[in-house]
């Protein structure tokens, strides 16, 4: 099931409390970590909480989520594949 990347970006901004950033400013393919937004390992954990809260996906090992956190698109694909139907 496809998920809206716009909605996903809004959820990311809300869960990470990103300031002065709109969903439009986040490139779907750009790396989320390491550059640009300046996110770190604790932000990754906030994304884990977001995945459970907004999409019902439980991650117990951060390594599981690591490939998904590469970009908005990889995260959207991960959610589409894992989301409980």
């Amino acid at each position, binding site marked *: 099931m496809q998920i809206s990347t716009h909605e996903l970006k809004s959820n990311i901004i809300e869960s*990470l409390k990103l300031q002065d950033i709109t969903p439009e400013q986040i490139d779907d393919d750009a790396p989320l970590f390491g550059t640009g937004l300046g996110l770190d390992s604790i932000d990754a*954990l906030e994304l884990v909480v977001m995945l459970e809260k907004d999409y019902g996906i439980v991650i117990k090992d951060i390594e599981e989520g690591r490939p998904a956190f590469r970009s908005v698109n990889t995260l959207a694909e991960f959610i589409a594949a894992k989301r409980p139907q």
Partner: protein
Amino acid sequence: MSASGFGMEAVWRAVSSGSSGLKPLTLFQSPRYGQILTGEIQCDLIALGAPTRSSRSDKLGWLAAREAIAHAKINFQSGGERAGIVLGTSVGGSYDSEIFLSTLIKRGKMRARPTRFHECVTTVDLIADEFGLFGPSMALATACSSSALAIALAAEMILSGEADVMLTGGADSMSRMTWGGFHSLLLVDSAGCRPFDATRGGMSLGEGAAVLVLESEASAQRRGAKILARLSGWGASCDAYHATSPHPQGAGATAAMQSALRRAGLEPTAIDYVNAHGTGTRDNDVAEAIALKTVFHNRVPPFSSTKRIFGHALAASGAMEAVVCVEALRRQELPPNPGFSKCDPAIGLEPVIELRHAPLTHVMSNSFGFGGNNGVLIFSKPETSPQTRAPEKIQIAVGGIGVIGPGAVTIKEIGSPLPSGKGLVHSCGVLTDAAMLTPNQRRRLSRLQQMALITARQSHAPDPSQRVAVAIGTGLGCLEDAGTFIENLISKDEREPMPSRFPNSVHNSPTGQVAIDQAARGMNSAPTVGEITFESALWQGICQLATDEADCALVGAADEVDKYLLSIGQRWGAWNEKIKPGEGAVVVSLARAEKISSPLARVTIVRLGRYRKPFDAEREADWIASIIDLAAIDVVLSGAKGFLKLDAMYEAVAAALSKRAGRKLEHQTYKQQCGEFHAASAFGFSVAVNLVRQRRRGVLLYTLSQRGGKAICCVQP
């Protein structure tokens, strides 16, 4: 005191057999993680003799102190002034305060009693009162390295002549906050920790306490003490890298180990065993292994982590592992590393697998904590004669001061969410200097961290050529973030935790952020000592300059108000027309006087201790007059605050000092300006510096804590 038993004998039985004390949690309901293994102490602590009016951490610390005193066959009946205590605590009374929050959230009832022992320092105060210690008493909270730093500080206090004997170590209990917090960071191994193993999946939380009796050679000889071991070296550093992740190459860990070796005057080859921090998390164990290989030039001595035996008892772990090191030396045995079975290629080292006999002369103990905070201790056989230098007597100058809040404060009316209504607060309001913070600092740092960061920058421009130590104390830490984190945890039954708030809950989170901001890689500490928190930070910072471990020391104190503090204080009648709650931060940049061309003032004396009850003003005045030159002083600046009993104590001492000086010393106060909070004497210090600059005469800053601590600080032109 550990999950694997109480008392040295029981603990060593567990260590030597490598048996794990981890069991499923019973202490409180954990809807989400209840079956996960933990190092909980499952017994009735009061039945063992612990005081009823105390927090769980207090009970653990108190029981360990009682055992240490009995074991050392020492009593403090006479000469309690020459005996002090420094403990590392991080969780403090959180476990008990969470009972208050839980009752409030789940049942809507406000029962504030369990919060009475919330502060980390209560453990120290209870022990000092019970066993008659009147020397310096301090608690410091640098997360999982707390008790290693505490033991090092106790040693410095003895070397500098402040005391002959120090009780030192640490105590931390299990709490919902740390339990939920480490789970929210996905750092807990559900099968129990397996340090250094290829398949390790994280840490196991534990609780416990360990106390050592540390004394000078002369004191031990005088009383014919049986010496178990010598503390021959210690080192502290900060990664200045990240709030929770260790530096990937273990740079800070390396620096701390090297500093400890330097202090002990030992080559790396002299170390026969290392008790590793070895939490079992992927990142710690790799970073620590890299650091070990660097320090020991790829010839790493036998090492092991004993975390699976006790669980990770956070602030207490450094002291518990120090005890393991002392006992290993005594028995000449290498403790094993339960949980290890397969070597991790990323680590490339194998710990000690089974207990074995080995000649041990010098052993090292590593403790690393949140905020990139590292503490390393070296213990040696009694027959060795380590060359530990005393801190030098040096002139200390103030290079700069940063102040937020009280000076420019507006008294604000703050609504309370609890039944007790509204209160007036000396609030810092919106941090107008927040513009100097980066967007990430603004979104992630608590108010308290932001205040510390801004005041540190006001006091000192980052200078990468300097070795900078940081000691910024706090009485209560980031109340708002800690409170919000626990509130959320309890009300949502551990669902949707707040991983970015949890790291802010440790008292050294402001200092850790200051370290990152200032690239300050020297010792990093957060004393938490009630009303004398600032003076304790001052002592510790100056010590780093006097031992030449730092070129600059950023010392200070910070506290914030939150809704619970206001409501509980109101319920207890702590606030009134004269005593209003306050908040704020002050950071002072210090260096050796010859290093600062135009200093604001000099700090000539800082001394800590405890007063006797009933309070005797003449005795206090004698103590002060024996330390400072009253002829150089015009003003006694006290922490009087409108509380009759305390104010009378200050007034009587000021009068007794005038009598000894043969002229009237002016008694001034500062809390009418800044309000009442633990860090307020830091604001008093800034007032003292201003007075000294105006009058070109000395000011005595005199502070009493309500639980028995006292401090004097002399500021002169």
